[in-house]
């Protein structure tokens, strides 16, 4: 397996975890993803902010239905 293929696979696994955390609105899954981000990664707050905003939208939609 080439380095590029390993990187592509890792990105896919990572992306799947983020998609799962968002779609299931599961903060523990999101935390698991964020915990493995390297120090200095610029994704932490931005990901949490997006996650919480999505969660609010989902609850508003649920409330209306």
């Amino acid at each position, binding site marked *: 397996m080439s380095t590029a293929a390993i990187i592509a696979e890792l990105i896919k696994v990572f992306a799947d975890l983020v998609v799962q955390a968002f779609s299931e609105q599961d903060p523990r899954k999101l935390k698991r993803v964020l915990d493995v981000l390297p120090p200095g990664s610029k994704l932490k707050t931005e990901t949490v902010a997006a996650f*919480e905003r999505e969660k609010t939208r989902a609850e508003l939609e649920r409330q209306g239905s």
Partner: protein
Amino acid sequence: MRPLNRSGATLAFAVVFLAACSSCAERDAQRAVQSSLTGLAHGVEAADRLVAEAWPAAAGQAREQVLSEREQDESVSVEDGMRRYDEIMDNWTTALNAMRAVREALFVGQAAFDVWLSAGSLPESWAAFCLNVEVMLVDLLDGLSAVGVDVPPPLRGAPGFAGAACEAAKPWLPLPTPENSGTNGGDQ
């Protein structure tokens, strides 16, 4: 012959000494700038971690408020609810944007510093970095205080450190030309 030799040796020593001193001064300035950039990067990293940890509680409260307001007034649409949520979270979003701005500025500053190390002189982007970074850091500190997140130690006094780093690097900035004098504030 002797006095001539002595003065020749003195002159040679002076030339070597001056050359060595100027390179020492540059190395000292580079060390100061690198330590300042590293400190700021660690500070932003710590702030990112603290804000990310505190965000869910604030967002949860904002969400509860929006949901309860909508429960009382059923005419409120999902989009109105989201607007209300964004309004309540405005201070947090401001802090996040300030953090993003500082992070991007530091990226530019670090890239300019790398050019200094490899090419021996600072690019003009360093002047642009210095022009903005202090204000951005003040905005970030204000943003953190507005959301009640403690300023992490590496960020305490950060605008002053950044200013000192910019001052230390000033002698290695390119001289102003008609082309660049408008971009570096014209004070170099």
